[in-house]
């Protein structure tokens, strides 16, 4: 997983609350065999509307999604996170996230930032008035900054440490690679092998 320290980019204001995972990525996309290629499934139903925020020319290349409360409710599908990442989002801002979605997002390196609704409102107003406005999500300083806005956010220390260092569970385990190698030297020769390598 890529490390997340600080990110600056244009935002897409999504003025909707209770965006559930079925809306983020509909069920029929789950038959796919990769973690890639979910970008076209992201908000599939809404994308049919040319006026939907992601379809607006001025939002192309946006990397920060600013959404209404209770983002990511519904099923546990990790595909919802993959779809947002495949589309190009690095961070999602909301006043409240569904637990499972938040856990999945942090596991995959998508930063989910909880801000008070009044700050979310301010970000909506700013980025709607000025589509070119940039938003900085700074995990080192635990701060979101934009023109006229500076807002601190919380994130538990363990998750922050893992994100700052780009550590997924595998990376954390591999920090103990020496232990694994040492263990391997003790395995008896009668243990089965599937092939000679």
């Amino acid at each position: 997983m890529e490390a997340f320290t600080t990110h600056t980019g244009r935002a897409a204001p999504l003025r909707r609350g209770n965006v559930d995972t079925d809306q983020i990525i509909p069920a029929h996309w789950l038959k796919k065999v990769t973690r890639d290629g979910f970008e076209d499934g992201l908000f599939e139903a809404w994308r049919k509307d040319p006026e939907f925020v992601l379809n607006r020319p001025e939002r192309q290349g946006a990397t920060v999604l600013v959404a209404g409360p209770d983002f990511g409710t519904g099923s546990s599908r990790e595909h919802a996170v993959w779809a947002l990442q495949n589309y190009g989002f690095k961070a999602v801002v909301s006043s409240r996230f569904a637990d499972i979605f938040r856990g999945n997002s942090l596991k995959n390196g998508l930063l989910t930032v909880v801000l008070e609704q009044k700050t979310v409102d301010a970000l909506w107003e700013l980025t709607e008035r000025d589509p070119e406005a940039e938003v900085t999500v700074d995990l080192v300083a635990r701060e979101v900054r934009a023109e006229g806005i500076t807002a601190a956010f919380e994130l538990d220390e363990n998750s922050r440490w893992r994100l700052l260092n780009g550590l997924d569970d595998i990376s954390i385990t591999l920090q103990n690679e020496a232990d694994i190698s040492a263990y391997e030297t003790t395995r008896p020769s009668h243990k089965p092998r599937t092939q000679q390598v």
Partner: protein
Amino acid sequence: MGRTLAEKVWDDHVVRRAEGEPDLLYIDLHLLHEVTSPQAFDGLRKSGRRVRRLDLTIATEDHNTPTLDIDKPIADPVSRAQLETLRKNCAEFGVRLHPLGDVEQGVVHVVGPQLGLTQPGTTVVCGDSHTSTHGAFGALAFGIGTSQVEHVLATQTLPMARPKTMAITVDGELPEGVTAKDLILAIIAKIGTGGGQGYILEYRGSAIEKLSMEARMTICNMSIEAGARAGMIAPDETTFAYLKGRPHAPEGADWDAAVEYWKTLRTDDDAEFDAEIRIGAAELAPFVTWGTNPGQGAPLSSCVPDPASYEDASERLAAEKALEYMGLEAGQPLRSVKVDTVFVGSCTNGRIEDLRAAAAIMKDRKVADGVRMLIVPGSARVGLQAVSEGLDVVFKEAGAEWRHAGCSMCLGMNPDQLAPGERSASTSNRNFEGRQGKGGRTHLVSPQVAAATAVLGHLAAPADLSDAPTPAAV
């Protein structure tokens, strides 16, 4: 204090133990199939990682594979894509794969043991809940999710918190015609589908010791249906005899060293389990499910239970809903339930001994009018063995359909499915709503009950056949 079998195997695999962290466990054998591996390989690719131990990893195709016309392209594009992805991933990363058409192809939990890869005292994982099957050899074996599949591919380890242990002691002699399947269905009915949650089950006692390896696998397979992630049986002479001479069994001095180690894999007399259950084998009888979870079962000789008889409100509601879905009446004798389909196969009961047991009953008999019977060997190898013994001819002469190996109607990811409202007697492990096809109704049974049911057209035991021979002893 002594240790249990599970604790011994666990302790032997701890790579790292630290305060406040789960143990890091070494994995001896990682089995892969097409459904739960694609995103894991993709994760490796994205992070530029390789498979750490190709020599401890093996893949086969089972869930999506058709059981007819296996030499033709697979019709369903989604199934085809999943299989093609597995082939591509295995080629790219160097994983040994047994694809459709290969002699070692088959349900992943049949393939591991038959190759001799599943051995006592090993840790075995697979992105599949029925990995518990391998515990029959005294292995610690459990199912994992896709992100854990990736973790094992990359590190050959898993961080795990140690589960508690539960002894299920079965003493005495199983009556004639009562099989391992009846026993495990009775155990699940007794402890419930959540009864094993948080535990590694150890099946022990004189009745278990008398069972063949195939029968032990049937029991361990369904541990997950009792909510346990793993089930184990201590290895003994039966285990060693099964393994001896298999392609991946140790040889020469390695064999001797292995057996010496394997013999230490018994729960110590002074070890303590966190929970204990006792069952008398002599009281058991052929068992079938009437509901929509594997815990909703009863002796074949009894009647569909009355939901009102349940004291627990949620159980009562579950029973009501199950009867409605299953189209059954409270009080109806289970023997009166007519079926359309009989399925013999799956990682629960798709091994050679299961096919022999069913064939012994089908010999010189016919599948009842209006019933279709599917015989799906658990692996291509099992299929070949059956053919060499002439079992396929017995089945075909009886009017049953002899198919190629795979998961097939166990979950209907391939074309083998029940139509809405159709009812099956199935030797598989899950009777969930729609498991064998949308709207399909499943009764879980042993291979012997499946065969007798196919002949009579309603749920039945071999003893019900008017010209009943002695049922095949298992």
